[in-house]
C-alpha cells in the first residue's frame, strides 16, 4: 500500500484552525490570524518539526525575521526584555511550530513520532499533492504554515537544533 498524501488527511481550514488556537493561547487572546496571502518576506526564517510515521514530512512555519522577533516578544509577555535576543527568537518560533505540529500530528495516521523543533532555512517541500499550505497575515505581516511531505533528508545541516 502506498503512503498517504497529506491532502487526503487534512485540509487548509483545519491547519488554519489549529494555528488560530495556538495564536490565541500563546501569542495573545486578541491576536488574529487573517487567512490572506501577503508579499513573501525578504528575509524569511522558518521553524519546523518533523513527523515520522505512515505519513512522513514536516510542519513548517515561515515568516520574516521582524515578525519572528515580534512573536518572541509576544510569547514572553511581561518578561520580554527591551531587546529580544536571538536565542529567544529561535526558542519562540520553534515552540510555535512544535505546538502547531503536535496538533497536526494528532490528525495523522498513528503511530507517528514528532521530532524536536528546528529553526533555519525551510526544508524543501515535497510534491504539491503532498503539501497543505496556509497563507496568513499576523499584524499585517505574512506568515505561512506548510504541512509538507518529505522531499529531502530533513536532518540536513540547515537548521539549529533546539
Amino acid at each position: 500500500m502506498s503512503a498517504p498524501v497529506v491532502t487526503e488527511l487534512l485540509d487548509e481550514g483545519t491547519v488554519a484552525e489549529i494555528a488560530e488556537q495556538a495564536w490565541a493561547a500563546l501569542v495573545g487572546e486578541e491576536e488574529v490570524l487573517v487567512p490572506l496571502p501577503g508579499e513573501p518576506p525578504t528575509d524569511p526564517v522558518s521553524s519546523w518539526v518533523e513527523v515520522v510515521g505512515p505519513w512522513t514530512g514536516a510542519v513548517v512555519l515561515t515568516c520574516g525575521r521582524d515578525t519572528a522577533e515580534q512573536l518572541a516578544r509576544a510569547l514572553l509577555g511581561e518578561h520580554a526584555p527591551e531587546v529580544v535576543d536571538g536565542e529567544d527568537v529561535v526558542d519562540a518560533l520553534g515552540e510555535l511550530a512544535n505546538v502547531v505540529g503536535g496538533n497536526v500530528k494528532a490528525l495523522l495516521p498513528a503511530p507517528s513520532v514528532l521530532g524536536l523543533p528546528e529553526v533555519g532555512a525551510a526544508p524543501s517541500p515535497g510534491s504539491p499533492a503532498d503539501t497543505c499550505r496556509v497563507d496568513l497575515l499576523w499584524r499585517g505581516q505574512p506568515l505561512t504554515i506548510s504541512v509538507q511531505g518529505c522531499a529531502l533528508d530533513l536532518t540536513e545541516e540547515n537548521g539549529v537544533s533546539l
Partner: protein
Amino acid sequence: MKILVADDSRVMRQIVIRTLRQAGYDDHDVVEAEDGRDAYDKVHAEKPDLVLSDWNMPNMSGLECLQALRSAGSGVPFGFVTSEGSAEMREKAADAGALFLIAKPFTEETFRDALDGVLS
C-alpha cells in the same frame, strides 16, 4: 507548595508559569528544569509537590523522567504539558503514573481543571 516546571523551551516555561499565575496558583514556589534529566535531578534536590513536564525533550524525555522517578521509588505527583494530546499519548502517560496531560495550546481554565484536585 513547590512546583517544578520542566520544558526545554525557556519561552514555554515562562508561558506555563504565567498561566499558573493567571489560573490562581500564584502563591506557589516555582523551580525550572530544562530537560528530563534536569527534572529528575531537581525532583531529588528540590522535593517539589508537583511536576509539570513537557514530553518531547532532549537528553531525557518527560516520559523517561517519570519512569525513572517511579523506578527510583518517587511518587511525586506528575503531569504532562505537551503539544501532543492524542488518546495514545494520554494512555501512555496514565500507564506511567501521570495524573493528567494538558495539551498545548492551553488556557488558564485547562490548568484549573487539571490542577484543582492536586494543588487544593
